[in-house]
């Protein structure tokens, strides 16, 4: 078991299975097919992301450095949340980027979905956490990986 202290961007507690992207997470490319074709598992459609491609994202603890790509990214997170296809939580090793921040805040203010978000967990976090591990977020941004 390892613990990492991050900064709370959107508060909330959750326990979920980790899904880890070591490279930048391209939000539009990842959710595009899921949003277009009603895939409730939110299977990742980003061909450039070998870590996540073809893996379901809904309900997972999505662990990532930051998001990249189209500036529709925040809107995509918002839609995923409004359509109940959002990850259980978002855990950023780096400070959150502006697109992801917009997305999780839009989801928080404008939908009933819960998508707790913690950033600045450090590079060690992404080295320690592996897809399939269990991740728990506490209220104070303390993330436990086991």
């Amino acid at each position, binding site marked *: 078991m390892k613990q990492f202290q991050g900064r709370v961007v959107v508060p909330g507690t959750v326990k979920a299975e980790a899904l880890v992207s070591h490279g930048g997470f391209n939000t*539009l490319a990842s959710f595009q097919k899921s949003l*277009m*074709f009603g895939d409730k598992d939110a299977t990742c459609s980003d061909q450039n992301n070998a870590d996540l491609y073809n893996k379901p994202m809904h309900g997972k603890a999505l662990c990532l450095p930051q998001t990249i790509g189209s*500036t529709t990214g925040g*809107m995509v997170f918002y*839609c995923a949340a409004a359509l109940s296809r959002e990850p259980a939580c978002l855990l950023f090793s780096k400070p959150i980027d*502006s*697109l992801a921040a917009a997305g999780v805040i839009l989801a928080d203010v404008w939908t009933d979905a819960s998508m707790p978000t913690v950033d600045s967990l450090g590079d060690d976090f992404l080295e320690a956490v592996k897809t399939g591990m269990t991740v728990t977020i506490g209220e104070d941004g303390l993330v436990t990986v086991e």
Partner: protein
Amino acid sequence: MAMQLTAEQQHMLDGGKGEAFAKVMKTLVMYGETFGATEMVPVTSAKGHLVTSFGLSVMKPVYGLMDQLIEAGAISQQPFSVDPKPLDKNVPSNLLQNIFFKVMYSKQDDYDAQLKKLGIISDKSYTCTCYMDEVGNVPNKGDVLSWAESSAVVYANSVLGARCNRNSGILELFGSIAGCVPYFGLLTDEGRKATWIIEVKTSKKPEAQVLGSTIGMKVMEDVPYIKGLDAWIGTELNQDTRDFLKDMGAATASNGAVGLYHIENLTPEAVEQKEALIAENAQVYVIDDAELARVQASYPCIWKDQSAAPKLCFIGCPHLSVNQLHSWTQRLIDALKKQGRQKVAVPTVFTAAPGVLEVFEKTDDYQKLKKAGVVVSYICPLMYMNNPLCGKMPVITNSNKLRTYTSARYYTDAEILQRISGEVR
């Protein structure tokens, strides 16, 4: 430190103008506070630009949110342009693809009507290159913008010297509704300093789209200060240079998350401030021929049949300028002549803003293109490719942005020309 709001901003946040305005301001405040902003600054550009141009049936939440805004009278304080439309009947598509388009974009007419209520400039305002003179949404140096289209944001920041964060879709509309944006990141002098030095050491002029991709993949969201490129593209911001920077910037923004770059001796802030723009302890990344080749070789091709003959070619993501339309026409006509062909070997679409097309369609080159079988369109190639029946086709492009988001296969300009002129299958 919590955000310090003006009385008017606080009134909006407290619900004095209704719930929708309050949620708009709450979203902006939370967004700003996440990045340490302690104040809002006025949006000073004459016009806005929205990234969301498509009426996708599955994006219902967005249109529901727009309805909430319209009903509450929360519309943009600025007239705005919007990204390109997803549909154009002139672009080749078969019966099944057309049926799918109708289903996919069944909200298009409704969304177009929403955009009119929210403040779109005109029916001709659909393009990702709103900053072209023919479109007329050209920010001034120093203007504060509330835009989101990644290729337009990086162009406005870098080439025009305007100030805009890489906002998300919807957030940019919120800034235009509230008339203010949180002050952080690329709006600040500090945030515009380069934390990377890129040394371009190639033996020839690099392909704009590959260079941009290479830079974007390395620096991600950071600001690069690019040295050595002026040797290839000059020190004057003429139309050729602006076109190069448009395409390079779009690749930095889509293959990475770049919102601003500086080019030594060329872009406005680099000319004014020179190396004072470089932050302490900036990292260095050298790009030579081998590095560009390595990056280009890393692009995956997800066609089922890797050797399939291309069925369609898109040129113009981001949209082409008038200058680029002429240049491509001349190169294509010359290449076809060499092959003894009258028409292109691969159905080809050149895309540009409606205002740009209006100008181009009055020229002889337009007639030449038509005779060569090339379609010119205002369409968004990315939205076309999102149709799964189109996505299954072997489509080629010179756009690294289109490659990143779709199944389209990337080729350099020269390679594209070989294929559409029939020199190479």
